[in-house]
């Protein structure tokens, strides 16, 4: 069910996004940083699911608040004439890599365990 919801959301978003009017180049920085923040939230969510401490409220609030806050920070940076969005980018992408590492480790360990189990079974059978 969740997979279906994700698919529907992705397809709808893609269609509407393609047909949406082109926003000015000046504002594309905001959108980009929002995308990165949202992706960071997604990976964080996946990690928390794997760690079995996933909370929907925290995920959703993090998803939207991170995006909006990063946009606000970028705007502030433009006003102050300093590229704050770079800092946000570093933080988000860094966290994304950490989360990816955790996910990878989880699945690799699972896979290794399975193989070890299989080997054990084979040994027992023989």
């Amino acid at each position, binding site marked *: *069910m*969740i997979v*279906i*919801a*994700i698919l*529907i*959301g*992705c*397809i*709808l*978003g*893609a269609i*509407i*996004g*393609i047909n*949406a009017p*082109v*926003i000015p*180049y000046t504002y*594309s920085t905001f*959108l*980009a940083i*929002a*995308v990165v923040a*949202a*992706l960071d*939230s*997604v990976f964080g969510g996946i990690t928390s699911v794997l760690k079995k401490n996933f909370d*929907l409220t925290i*995920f*959703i609030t993090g*998803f*939207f608040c991170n*995006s909006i806050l990063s946009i606000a920070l970028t705007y502030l940076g433009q006003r102050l004439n300093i590229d704050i969005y770079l800092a946000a980018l570093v933080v988000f992408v860094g966290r994304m890599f950490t989360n990816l590492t955790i996910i990878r480790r989880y699945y690799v360990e699972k896979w290794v365990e399975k193989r070890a189990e299989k080997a054990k079974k084979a040994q027992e059978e023989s």
Partner: protein
Amino acid sequence: MKIKMKKEKIVMAVTIGIACFALMLVMFMQFKVVRQTDITAIEDMRESDLRVELSEWNQKYEELNAQYEDVMSKISEYQTEQESDEKTAQLLETELEQLNEALGMTNVEGEGIIIVLEDKGGTQLSDGETVKSINIEDLLIIVNDLFAAGAEAISVNDQRIVAMSDIFNIGSGDNSFIRVNGERITSPYIIKAIGNQNYLESAVIGKGGRVDVLKGLGHEATIEKSNKKIEIEKYNGTISTKYLN
């Protein structure tokens, strides 16, 4: 318990779906922006370079703007000049027309009189005297009187009287004839004059009026007044100057 679980799951699915929707929406919008703004050259530049470039373009723009304004002012200048040229051309044309009229180079028509003199020279009168022919003096006096009365154009037997016209007598006695503008004319002498018809008429009739005098001598003379019908042809010859500078 099971229903509650299901409800929670639905809420979760919907919220995650919304989140995915928002994410993909923003992502694709961004893709589109990046694809459409194909300004790699600008993207590769540093901000300071961009500033320099921008100021250069600004300067160029200002220069071009100044040039544009210059050209525009020149164009408007030319236009006003052209207009004034047209005006002077018109003025010159009307002036030329007036001069041509005054010189007798154009056919003119208007109010005036026609004097027809028939020479009865040589006929015997009752008292035994013969009538003297109309001579150039009579014509000269009539023409002069008409001009004095305000005639604007005069012709004698369709020879326009202009500045260089001559009324001249050639030969003597019975063999003499009158020449106007180098052309020989004979009786009847038709003198056309354009001007105020009453003034013109009164200049040649009455006491001392040459037409009446000629009538008294025995010639036939008629004066026709016309309101608008008189047509006087232009001077036929060419006005050539040799000694005028």
